């Protein structure tokens, strides 16, 4: 069937082409290769939209493109494409955000006279291509390879300003921390291959399907360490989860993300909204059919998510710099997605992934606009009163903030509410762990509302608190355009899945996203996952009642947080209230000493062990090697001495050797009998 889906590889290849162009010819092109990037991402975006509609019409695509290692009677390693509703939705998100980030970069990088633009646009192109390759990967190994490429690109882009002190160090930290997680992921990939002999996501050999059959006793798989299938699958799931926790900046591997703010702001938008950080959560959604089989893993995912959501939100409360606030909000929001996935809300989490992509890209680009205006001063305490100076940025940013805080009817409300609702009903259905996670998630809503509006009020409201704020630098269409597009999306995308409205008023058929995700391979759709979820549901006052209570409570918390921010900070001359927190303030400023303890682990625990190993390596391993070589040389010297140069000695030795052989073989072979 030749159709639009046959062009799917082009979606990945176009940005890769722009990478090559920017790298090879960027310095000769106007705008340093930006136009190639814009053209490529625009092309990918158009193709993604077409793909999206084709998938909506019921088409899917699952094909191996290239077998790069053919196992003799073992495993084939392949590259292939899997286009289903989940990946087609993600393609649209990634290409759209990438396109807007490219356009925005014209304003943020080109107009600001940055150097090294070809390198920048090459990085963006490769970053986009890697993420798109990851999204369409049809097997876990290919996903891992592109996952690593994404990590590499984030390293290159976070460290873009490599001549300063901060960025290279932040890039290194991002690389190392995510690598720590990826290490477990890699073992997980090997474990999946060893267990199932296949790492495909879909099709007859899909490992989630094989795992399901194995648990039903229809198919046998290899398990290791003497574990049963259930326990072993849990171990495999947790190994892969290691990569997810690193990439999606979940506790305790979240520490790289705030530092990554050292990268250029458009890069932060790309990292947070559509590529790097989204990759982790997307991976869980991609292989959800596997996770859903192991309740322990799901519970752990939910707990990590809920805890991260709350934990990061509290740290966001005291930050001074606008991008730092956004960084912690990202960690917190990805916590919600993990919570949703762990609580069995596949659709809810995917929904939140989508809405978050739009409003977080918007907020970062808005922050970028503010930063341009403020001559690259990011301290919110130097801002204030920008509302009237830059109205487009203000209204777009406000739209994003309302979405982030979860105020009805902006996008974030619908998706966050659905995540919390799913957690609540499954918690009420007899899973107290989920109730605990729900409580943390709910509390985080309050903090989210608070820090979001604290940021809005400090930045845009009140009186200008510095010279630059009184006379900000203007921004051009290439900044305002992307903001306007995303502002509209942040306000409206929530409408694609208005489950509370459906449940409360009984209007059938407006949960478009849910229906969309249902139409796929039978082993990959939301319906199939819903059947496998190991939770049962419980309600307070019926389904509609629970929906109403849940929505009201979360909206109330969000409004409460926003109101507190209004009281404290929406005044002409806001002052720092953080001193009232006393010692808690210090803890929060230091991010709960997360960095400190991880540094302590590195220097206090790992380093001594490394020293011991180094001793072992230097002393024993090298000693053995050196010993062997000196023994060899010594023996060689002795052998050399046999060669006296006197020919009669040779004749004697020759004869003696022959005699020795004769005696030895003769005795063995019974020649003298």
């Amino acid at each position, binding site marked *: 069937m030749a159709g639009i889906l046959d062009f799917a590889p082009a979606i990945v290849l176009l940005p890769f082409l722009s990478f090559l162009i920017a790298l090879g010819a960027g310095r000769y092109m106007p705008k340093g290769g930006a136009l190639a990037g814009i053209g490529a991402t625009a092309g990918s975006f158009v193709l993604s939209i077409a793909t999206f509609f084709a998938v909506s019409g019921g088409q899917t695509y699952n094909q191996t493109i290239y077998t790069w290692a053919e196992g003799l009677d073992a495993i084939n390693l392949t590259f292939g494409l899997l286009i289903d509703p989940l990946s087609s939705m993600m393609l649209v998100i990634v290409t759209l955000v990438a396109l807007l980030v490219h356009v925005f970069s014209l304003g943020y990088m080109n107009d600001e006279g940055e150097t090294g633009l070809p390198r920048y646009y090459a990085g963006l192109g490769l970053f986009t291509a890697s993420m798109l390759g990851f999204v369409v990967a049809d097997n876990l190994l290919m996903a891992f390879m592109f996952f690593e490429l994404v990590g590499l690109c984030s390293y290159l882009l976070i460290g873009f300003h490599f001549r300063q002190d901060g960025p290279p160090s932040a890039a290194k930290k991002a690389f190392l921390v995510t690598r720590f997680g990826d290490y477990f992921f890699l073992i997980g990939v090997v474990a999946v291959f060893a267990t199932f002999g296949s790492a495909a996501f879909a099709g007859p050999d899909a490992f989630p399907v094989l795992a399901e059959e194995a648990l039903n006793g229809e198919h046998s798989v290899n398990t290791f360490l003497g574990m049963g299938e259930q326990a072993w699958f849990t171990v495999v799931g947790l190994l892969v989860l290691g990569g997810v926790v690193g990439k999606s900046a979940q506790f305790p591997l979240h520490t790289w993300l705030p530092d990554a703010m050292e990268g250029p702001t458009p890069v932060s938008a790309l990292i947070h909204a559509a590529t790097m950080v989204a990759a982790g959560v997307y991976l869980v959604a991609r292989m959800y059919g596997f996770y859903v089989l192991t309740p322990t893993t799901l519970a752990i995912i939910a707990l990590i998510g809920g805890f991260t959501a709350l934990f990061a939100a509290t740290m966001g409360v005291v930050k001074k710099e606008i991008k730092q606030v956004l960084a912690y909000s990202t960690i917190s929001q990805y916590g919600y997605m993990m919570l949703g996935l762990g609580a069995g809300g596949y659709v809810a989490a995917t929904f939140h992934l989508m809405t978050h992509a739009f409003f977080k890209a918007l907020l970062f680009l808005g922050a970028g606009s503010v930063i341009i205006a403020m001559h690259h001063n990011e301290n919110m305490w130097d801002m204030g009163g920008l509302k009237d100076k830059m109205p487009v940025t203000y209204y777009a940013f406000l739209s994003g903030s309302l979405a982030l805080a979860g105020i009805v009817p902006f996008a974030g409300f619908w998706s966050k509410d659905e995540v919390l609702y799913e957690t609540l009903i499954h918690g009420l259905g007899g899973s107290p762990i989920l109730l605990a996670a729900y409580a943390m998630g709910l509390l985080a809503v309050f903090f989210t509302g608070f820090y979001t509006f604290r940021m809005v009020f400090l930045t845009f409201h009140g009186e200008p608190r510095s010279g630059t704020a009184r006379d900000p630098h203007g921004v051009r269409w290439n900044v305002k355009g992307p903001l306007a597009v995303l502002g509209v999306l942040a306000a409206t995308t929530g409408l694609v899945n208005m489950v509370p409205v459906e449940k409360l008023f009984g209007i059938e058929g407006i949960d478009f996203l849910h229906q969309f995700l249902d139409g796929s391979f039978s082993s990959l759709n939301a319906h199939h996952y819903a059947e496998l979820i190991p939770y049962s549901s419980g309600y307070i006052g019926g389904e509609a009642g629970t929906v109403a209570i849940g929505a009201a409570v979360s909206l109330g918390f969000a409004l409460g947080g926003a109101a507190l921010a209004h009281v404290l900070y929406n005044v002409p001359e806001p002052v720092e209230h953080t001193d009232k927190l006393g010692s808690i303030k210090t803890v929060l400023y230091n991010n709960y000493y997360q960095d400190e303890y991880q540094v302590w682990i590195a220097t206090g625990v790992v380093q001594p062990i490394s020293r011991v190993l180094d001793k072992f390596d230097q002393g024993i391993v090298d000693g053995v090697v050196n010993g062997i*070589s000196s023994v060899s040389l010594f023996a*060689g010297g002795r052998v050399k001495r046999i*060669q006296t140069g006197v020919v009669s000695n*040779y*004749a004697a030795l020759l004869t003696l050797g*022959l005699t020795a052989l004769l005696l030895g073989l003769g005795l063995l*072979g*019974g*020649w003298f*009998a």
Partner: protein
Amino acid sequence: MTPLQTLPEWAATAPAIVLALTGLALLLIDTIDPDSTNNGLLAGTATLGALAAGGIAAWFLIGGTGMESTGGAISLYGDALVVDGMSLFFTLIFTSVTAMVTVASYDYLADEEYQGEFYSLVIFAATGMTLMGMSNSLATVFVSLELASLPSYALVAFLKKDRGSIEAGLKYFLIGALSSAVFAFGISLVFAVTGSLVLPEVAATLAEGTELVGVLGLGVLMIAGGFAFKTASVPFHFWAPEAYEGAPAPVSAFLSSASKAAGFAVAFRVFTVAFPLETVTAIGGGSVDWSLLFALLAVVTMTLGNFAAATQENVKRMLAYSSIGHAGYALIGLAAITVDGGAANGDVLGASMAHLLVYGFMNTGAFLFIAMVEKWGLGRTFEDYNGIASKAPIAATAMTVFMFSLAGLPPFGGFVSKYALFYSAIESGFWWLAAVGAVNSALSLFYYSRVVKAMWIEEPSKPLEIGSQPVGLYVAVIFAAVGTVLLLPGFQPVIETAQTVAAALF
């Protein structure tokens, strides 16, 4: 279409005949014009003859002469000679090495006297080697072995005014005479037990059993000694370092590559055809387990060769020991043969043959590079090689290829041939032999890389002066290097041919 349908049977020995005629032609040229300095005519005739013989051998090999597809081995002259795939395969090795050596000698001998004698001796020795590969009777084995050896003694001593060359030639001759005596005595003992010299008849007689197992064992051991001399294996290796070091470098290349391969060719045939392992390991209440003998010799030979090579200061002498080490690797082909090996026997023997072919290129090339350095008058130690790459980058690159290939590193032919050899040894159950070989290979990397390091990294202690750019030597060295590299992608047909023709022996 096969050659057999159109040619008489005796034509199967065409490679040997062509070589013999070439040798006579060289003598004729030399007789007509004894004082000629027309080196080009002599070298050209010799090279042409070698290439013609090699071309015929390759044509026969592709056409299937003497192989199962055309009715099996061709026996000639009352079974004294046999032409089959293995003899043709080895002929290909001898002739390609001979061609490289004669081309290189064009420059090396430019100022020497008695050039006609030199080329005819080389070609006669090559004739002897070709006949060794075809020998099917212990008598022809002995005669052809002497035909190959006697010119070699003269060749080693060719530089009549060089003390080292004379001394080396004399030592080689003395050890050779002793070995020939041992060998001839061994043949007589086997004849005493079996009453025949023709290899298949010896096997047939032994199959009926004998009481004289001790005599047979001694005879077999002494015959093995004769081959150990030719292949420079322990304990008959003592001549090798001296002869290779003292001889003109092209002669060293010739001896260490072609002559060694000839020793293996005849050893492979004699032991697999005349003394089938399943017969001689259970005979007359005793056992003549030559596979164990060769396993022992292989381990000792490769270890001694590599250890001694590691401590040399003279590059040529280092290569001499390394060539002893490689004899140890090739001996695995006989050592890993088992009574119930079946197809694995043919595989390991074929792998050994394929290794000898690759070795023919890389080792000849390495010695010819030394010939080039001698021609430049740079000296013989590692220090003298310092910085050569800055003056002669192409030749140094070729030498680097030879060194890494000899050490068994990818991406060169030596890697894959050594790999195939060790792999088939493991297949036959001789993993420990492969392990010893692998350890030795690792050690060999040490001294091979010393040459590379000296050429590329070290600074010369005194200003380097490279006089001429010897064309013939360059052609031969580059040809050998290209062959060494191309044998990596082209190894598949080589190993398949070798293993097929080796399997025909069992």
